[in-house]
């Protein structure tokens, strides 16, 4: 009888990513609700040393598959390993982070296990003994409460939504050696982003510029404010399509969905498709000289004025605060 919660932790370059702790904490919460245990699967090369960290966030047992074959992510090897872990541990629920890797992996695992996956969820709870997963659909215009009727129930959690909560458990490390088949799709090159700024989907604060920026050279004021706040820099589709900012900076329906505590939108009108990407920000600030801009309907704080005058003043005011 399938029982207990399994999480699929994510590490890169031998470091557990924050999403792993968010997922562990949520798994711990659900397990406590149901009187169950939490196990983690950790795949990588030379990662035994980091496995116990998951214990800090509520994991009882960590199944570590430590092998060169897992050094870099591959859908096929990781799917083989997760499927083997499910077969051995027989969890009722498997929780993944909805990171880029997590979304790629969890869907393949759903296919492998012929089960259902509630993906990119923003809430998870037990209601009358049933696990209900909530996820935004129609670009966040509504939320869907879902029940996975297959076994095990797979869920992936949106990054930066669930808190990482320390809850010390044993985190006992167990060696695990899954059989892995042929890997036909492999990473052959990795180019790290040189800008060194925070990843948008995991940022606490984002400063974003849109069509009102009028040109790429003007983004220095956005970058300065972002640097002062320790924030990531985002852009609207208009700015990306104009070639002012790279695609990876785009926030919106055909860009990234972000969940920061603070989103500062400068020269962004607030089209539905942009709002789709940032409307679940905790606080939204809009700076735009058009008082009719739709973004003011969503903003908690709005300044109707010339962003070229206002944004540098915000930077100055923040610097003063930090003195």
């Amino acid at each position, binding site marked *: 009888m399938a029982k207990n919660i399994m999480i699929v932790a994510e590490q890169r370059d031998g470091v557990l990513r924050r999403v792993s702790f968010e997922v562990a904490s949520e798994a711990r919460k659900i397990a406590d609700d149901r009187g169950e245990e939490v196990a983690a699967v950790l795949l990588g090369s030379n990662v035994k040393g980091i496995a116990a960290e998951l214990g800090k966030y509520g994991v009882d047992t960590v199944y570590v598959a430590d092998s060169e074959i897992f050094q870099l992510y591959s859908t096929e090897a990781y799917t083989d390993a997760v499927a083997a872990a499910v077969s051995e541990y027989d969890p009722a629920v498997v929780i993944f982070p909805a990171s880029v890797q997590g979304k790629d992996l969890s869907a393949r695992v759903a296919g492998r296990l012929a089960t259902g996956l509630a993906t990119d969820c923003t809430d998870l709870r037990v209601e009358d003994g049933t696990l209900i997963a909530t996820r935004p659909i129609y670009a966040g215009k509504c939320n869907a409460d879902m029940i996975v009727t297959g076994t095990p129930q797979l869920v992936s959690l949106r990054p930066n939504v669930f808190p990482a909560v320390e809850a010390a458990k044993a985190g006992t490390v167990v060696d695990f050696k899954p059989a892995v088949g042929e890997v*036909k799709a492999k990473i052959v090159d990795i180019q790290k982003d040189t800008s060194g700024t925070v990843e948008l989907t995991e940022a606490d604060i984002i400063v974003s510029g849109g069509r009102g920026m009028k040109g790429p050279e003007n983004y220095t004021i956005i970058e300065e404010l972002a640097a002062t706040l320790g924030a990531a820099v985002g852009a609207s589709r208009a700015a990306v399509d104009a070639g002012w900012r790279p695609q990876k900076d785009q926030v919106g329906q055909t860009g990234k969905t972000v969940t920061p505590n603070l989103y500062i939108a400068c020269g962004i009108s607030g089209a539905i498709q942009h709002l789709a990407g940032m409307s679940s920000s905790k606080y939204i600030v809009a700076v735009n000289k058009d008082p009719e801009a739709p973004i*003011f309907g969503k903003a908690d704080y709005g300044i109707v004025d010339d962003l070229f005058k206002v944004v540098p003043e915000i930077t100055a005011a923040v610097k003063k605060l930090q003195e």
Partner: protein
Amino acid sequence: MNVVVCVKQVPDSETLVKVKPDGSGIEEAGIKWVMNPYDEFAVEEGLKLKEKNGGDVTIVTLGPGRAMETIRTALAMGAEKGIHISEDTFDDDCAYSKASALAAAIKEIPHDIILCGQRAIDDDEGQVGPILAELLGIPQVTLVTSLTVDGNTARAVKAIEGAQVTIESSLPCVITAQKGLNEPRYASLPGIMKAKKKPVDVKDAASLGITADAKIKIVRLTPPPERAPGKIIEGDDPATKAQELVTLLREEAKVI
């Protein structure tokens, strides 16, 4: 080269989504139906592969009768033929069921590469591509922003958090298309006219030997939480307004 592109018909992104009072679904009256924007990148990439390597592009779509229009749009862009798995009551909430239907149709035709949009903008799931790849027993690369095919190898670039990775895969494989992969062409008027005569095979679940066996269900839809109305910061000059904002962010919102 036998290129297969999976295309879905979805509500236009401008659609004002209204949840039915009982939360069982959304109001469909007045919806403008379009090709899923990410599938446009997939169709375009398929056409480019055909133009470079020869062969043809087959569009495969699962959906009700109205989805035929979207297949015709893809044919108008230049695809040669289509398969319409026509179902009005097919479980739309279950990615596994949908992928099973597509896999059953695609298994029967030659396929060197399968392209899909990275996700559909109605369910925002991104599962069907990977599940399809698993069911066909072939590799996948998701969120692809650059693709080159050389002989039996696909070389794809995608963004992960903080990096760009290049993945090489043998063919056949499933590639899911991300914005930035290409600039989709518009269907020309001659293309639209030709599309009317291109062959579209209409199948149903029974003829493909599949039964919808849902692994997941939506139990209710709810509107997103309302945001409290915000305030416009007044002041004599930009500096004053900026200062007020920073004070509010520190003391009221407590986010800086």
